[in-house]
């Protein structure tokens, strides 16, 4: 599904990613963890195609094709969905309008007719229940005046409607209380399928109690310093990130006192 090779990325001429290699197969969930400033969000933004992220070396293949030459909207139509860390507020554009525009863009791309208004409403209301949002959210401007948790749930609602092939969740757990976190995790889990892959970017292990990953990668200083199964996340939880930032723990004794 997704193959990243030697990916190097700069922002404002400053190298952020220094050679990332990873492969995500259909059906898998990969977690990317790491301390602040390690390049987690940069990786997510490069996959979504945000401007200002300059790829200086390496490649990203999505279903065998060069992802980096696609415009953001083309990536979306090809089935990539990014749940943003900081979803933007768009006054004057209602949630339901955005959902419909997004769904129809994908449908047109697939050669399908635009969805019938009644079918659409039925579909959206059913998804709305899953994220436990009230109907009036549909008619409010996108994210305008939403709480942090509501914004994150709104991202997940969009993901539910669009049913992407590859979902990238950028710190979706930040700003969520435990109840909201469970709601989000439940929904994400229902979307897990052999045809779908997910990349879950998170600072904390907590989310991974609920969305159990197949692989965990630890990012530090723009490199993957360690990969492993879900137990790696637990290890990070107990030891923190300091051993990574300072190099392998056995060669760097902690100085205390």
């Amino acid at each position, binding site marked *: 599904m997704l193959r990243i090779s030697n990916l190097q990325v700069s922002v404002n001429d400053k190298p952020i990613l220094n050679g990332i290699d990873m492969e995500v197969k259909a059906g898998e969930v990969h977690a990317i963890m790491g301390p602040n400033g390690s390049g987690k969000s940069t990786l997510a933004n490069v996959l*979504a*195609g*945000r*401007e200002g992220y300059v790829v200086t070396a390496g490649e990203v293949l999505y279903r065998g094709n060069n992802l980096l030459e696609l*415009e*953001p*909207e083309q*990536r*979306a*139509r090809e089935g990539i969905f*990014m749940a*943003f860390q900081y*979803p*933007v507020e*768009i*006054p*004057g*554009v*209602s949630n339901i*309008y*955005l959902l419909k*525009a*997004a769904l129809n*863009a*994908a449908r047109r*791309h697939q050669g399908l007719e635009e969805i019938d208004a009644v079918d659409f409403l039925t579909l959206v209301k059913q998804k709305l229940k899953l994220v436990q949002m009230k109907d009036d959210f549909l008619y409010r*401007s*996108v994210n305008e005046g939403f709480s942090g948790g509501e914004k994150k749930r709104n991202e997940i609602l*969009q993901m539910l409607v*669009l049913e992407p092939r590859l979902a990238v969740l950028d710190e979706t757990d930040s700003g969520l209380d435990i109840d909201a976190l469970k709601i989000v995790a439940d929904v994400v889990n229902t979307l897990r399928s052999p045809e779908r892959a997910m990349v879950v970017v998170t600072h904390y292990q907590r989310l991974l109690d609920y969305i159990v990953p197949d692989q965990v990668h630890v990012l530090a200083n723009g490199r993957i310093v360690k990969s492993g199964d879900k137990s790696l996340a637990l290890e990070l939880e107990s030891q923190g990130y300091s051993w990574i930032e300072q190099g392998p723990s056995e060669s760097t004794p902690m100085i205390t006192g």
Partner: protein
Amino acid sequence: MNQVTEAYVTAHQNLAQNLAGQSVAWVRQMREQGLSRLQTAGFPTTRDEAWKYTNVRPITKHRFTPATPQRDGLSLDDTRRFALPGLNSHRLVFVNGHFSQALCDLSGLPEGLFVGSLASALERDAAAVEPYLGRCAPENSHGFDALNSAFLTDGAYIRIDSDCVLERPVEILCVSSSDGEDLMNLPRNLIIAGAGSQSIIIERYVAAGGARYLTNSMTELFCAADSTVEHYKLQQEDINAFHVGGLYLRQERSSRFTSHNIAIGGSLVRNALYADLADEGVECNLNGLYLGTGRQHLDNYTHIDHSKPNCTSREFYKGILDGRARAVFHGRIVVHADAQHTDAQQENKNLLLSRDAEVDTKPQLEIYADDVKCAHGATVGQLDADAMFYLRSRGVEENAARSILTYAFANDVLERVSVAPIRVELEKKLTSRLLDGRHLENPS
């Protein structure tokens, strides 16, 4: 006095005896005062504070001919195409500023509403008009208003009796029809809303031909005590036309006035609104939307006089500019010493869609009372890059995303438009002029 002004003086000498009501002393005097004001003041220049950002030379270097009534002008079919579907208005039609009875739709006028032409009122019943005409406009007017007064002869005359509640809006449709002879249309509208009356008045400016012309209009509107008036001005002149228009408003005790000032057409446009909040408890809401493309210049000037205590004014103007268009918002609010407990708010927001578009926004608050609440804000910005990316990341293509966000920007002005057929017309214009003709469902 320059040559153009001299030419207007000569034209006035030739025309005056044919103008309606010239035999009435006060009418004659009003015209003469206008003419002498034009001679002494001349046309405004950018040295005048209120005209700082608008150079009217492109207008004043031409000698326009005051339009006379056309004998065989437009047909009913010509004007029907300007009708807004579903509006169902009492429609008064003026061709080049002159009343055209044959083109009007005045069936089913309710009791308590009088509509007609100012020219015929000046001929037949000047005494009824005298307490109002010219009483709203200031004496030290600028050259354009002076020019209008010098030649004033026709326009809409609308009188709504006390406590009369109009079910249908009254529409003043001003059609320009010229064939390249540099015509000058000088409509003068007079609207008197009686105490406790409720009405919607729609002033529209459209063109049946593409020649250069000047519309130099003045509307005086009296809102008597406890009246409610909603006023629309839809300026959709030809793209080659000049338009200098002024709305002069006087509000009496506890009256409520709302205006929607929409500027779409014209090459060089000045759209002025003067509101005199003359008694207590008045509410005055001024909304505006200006959509400029190409090399259009759209100037909005508003002046609110808070003369008495306990009045509220709300101004909300938005502009969207593309191409090399330029716009001005100059909002002056004067709170006089007697006007305690004034609550005035002004907001002007602008969206620039191109690098070469430009806007000058100037709030001007003068406060002489000490217990007041006044606030103003102005913004000029481009489309939000983060919002653009967000929409694109959901599969919306770049052009469509621009259109959606542009539409969304205009939306809070459009939502204030309570007359649905006007809102539909505005949505169409927004689409055709700024969204590459792309049809878009309302995103809100």
